[in-house]
């Protein structure tokens, strides 16, 4: 496991030294702090705006970063041939893939942790309540990042960075709209449209089930069961994607 952890830690170190990550982190901190400005134009809904702005900023930037990191990592390793130096060592390809995925997730969760601290500071500063829905939305965001990273990794094992990124972004949108598509298709008189709607609902990850940001903004209660089921969905879906990614990666030729 020595090599596994070394490579995972190296992924975190890579993200820390990556200019894009640094710029995104700095921008995120700036945005979170700038929510103070938003409060100036708010009269009665300060808590709601502060929570909504903070959580949305974190979600948008972290999801964007998750797509960028997960889709670029493997193609860049192959293009630069750094992968040759790793997989020629006594390390299986699946362990390589898992350790890189772990490194990626450590980077994202560490950044989310830092952003959460700034966000909590803002809440404390404006005496806004830290509700269970906010905690649920942060857990949901972690689950969402896990799924998006797994999707990015899967496609990057056999396609280019650009193609992987386009598909992953498409799946992020489709995942958030999966429920709406299902409901719309269900109302259609056409059996084919119903089938396509249902198929896409079950095929793409239902990212909306991991999104509790609206409840957090409106200070609504989020049942623990809903959080647990969304985490379980994320873990299960990611596990399937990672297994498929591993199978593809094990067979791939590094030309």
């Amino acid at each position, binding site marked *: 496991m*020595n*090599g596994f*952890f*070394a*490579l995972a830690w*190296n992924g975190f*170190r*890579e993200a820390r*030294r*990556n200019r894009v990550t640094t710029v995104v982190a700095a921008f995120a901190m700036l945005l979170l702090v700038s929510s103070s400005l938003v409060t100036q134009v708010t009269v009665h809904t300060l808590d709601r705006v502060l929570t909504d702005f903070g959580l949305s900023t974190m979600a948008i930037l972290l999801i964007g970063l998750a797509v960028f990191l997960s889709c670029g990592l493997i193609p860049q390793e192959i293009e*630069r*041939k*750094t992968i*040759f*130096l*790793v*997989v*020629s*060592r*006594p*390390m*299986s390809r699946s362990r390589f893939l898992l350790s890189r995925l772990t490194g990626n997730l450590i980077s994202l969760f560490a950044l989310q942790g830092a952003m959460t601290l700034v966000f909590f500071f803002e809440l404390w500063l404006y005496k806004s309540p830290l509700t269970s829905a906010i905690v649920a939305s942060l857990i949901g965001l972690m689950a969402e990042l896990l799924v998006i990273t797994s999707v990015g990794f899967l496609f990057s094992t056999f396609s280019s960075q650009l193609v992987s990124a386009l598909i992953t972004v498409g799946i992020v949108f489709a995942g958030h709209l999966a429920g709406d598509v299902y409901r719309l298709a269900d109302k259609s008189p056409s059996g084919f449209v119903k089938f396509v709607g249902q198929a896409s609902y079950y095929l793409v990850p239902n990212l909306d089930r991991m999104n509790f940001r609206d409840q957090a903004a409106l200070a609504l209660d989020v049942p623990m069961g809903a959080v647990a089921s969304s985490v379980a969905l994320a873990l299960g879906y990611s596990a399937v994607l990672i297994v498929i990614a591993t199978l593809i990666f094990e*067979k791939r*030729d*590094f*030309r």
Partner: protein
Amino acid sequence: MSDADFPVQALKLTKTYRLGFFLNKHITALNGLDFSVPRGSVFGLLGPNGAGKSTTIKLLLNLVTPSSGQARLFGQSPTEHSVRRRLGFVPENPAPYNYLTGREFMSLSGRLANLSGHELDQQIAKLLGEVDLSRAANVQVRRYSKGMVQRLVLAQALLGAPELLILDEPTSGLDPIGRRQIRDLILAQREKGTTILFCTHIIPDVEAVCDQLVILVGGRKITEGPVASLLGSGGEVELIVENIAESELAFAASTLKRVERRFVFRVPEADSMRVVGEVLQKGGRLVQLNPVRLGVEEVFLQAVRDAGHTVGSESST
């Protein structure tokens, strides 16, 4: 001889790539390659660009899977982790993680090779010293020159004292000083008894370091053997004579060169004694008689011609 005597074996190794959108184009990169690398030798894989050298290396390291045939390392499949613990690898144009310092990269490589702790620290310090990178150890790799990168990657390949080194074009793109440094490091490893598979298209490097050689052209093995025997007599002798008129040497007009008062020419080895007799009979004096030895370049170019490929200016005629 057992498998253990040959750390590297290619057995009818063939690789066909399927290309195109529908994967309907087939390119044979390597065709039935057979060779065995004896323990402790420096074995050269020589060939022009596209000959299949890098494909051979990738097959040996399980970076690509063979279409048919087998690659064996220490008698086992390259997919076995145990065999990969016993080798070090330097890829062509290596690009280590450039955000790491040289020391961090060595540390990562060591951990991937299952080394750790004090032993790893000691090896890193020793190897960075051997490749003359101690002073640059804490500098990020992105600030290294190409020669420094190459030496760093060679140093990581030496972590864990591997029994086998696989080097893919280790001197490619380096200046003469950089090439000399890498060659010296390879020769030092040869002295230690490490088996080295050395893939290159740079002929002087082969002459400098290799014991045995396989020449590949178009994915096929053209010739193979000890470098000394491949460089053996070309079946001709070179004579240097004086005190004789040029007209008396008309039989060697095709190779005849005048150097001041002397004439230099080549004749088939079988005719050498007869020609020497004639020269002496005509009052000439024999200054030197040397067997003509081929260089690796001539062997290589002859092999390429034999394979039906054109060489240099031949292609324009």
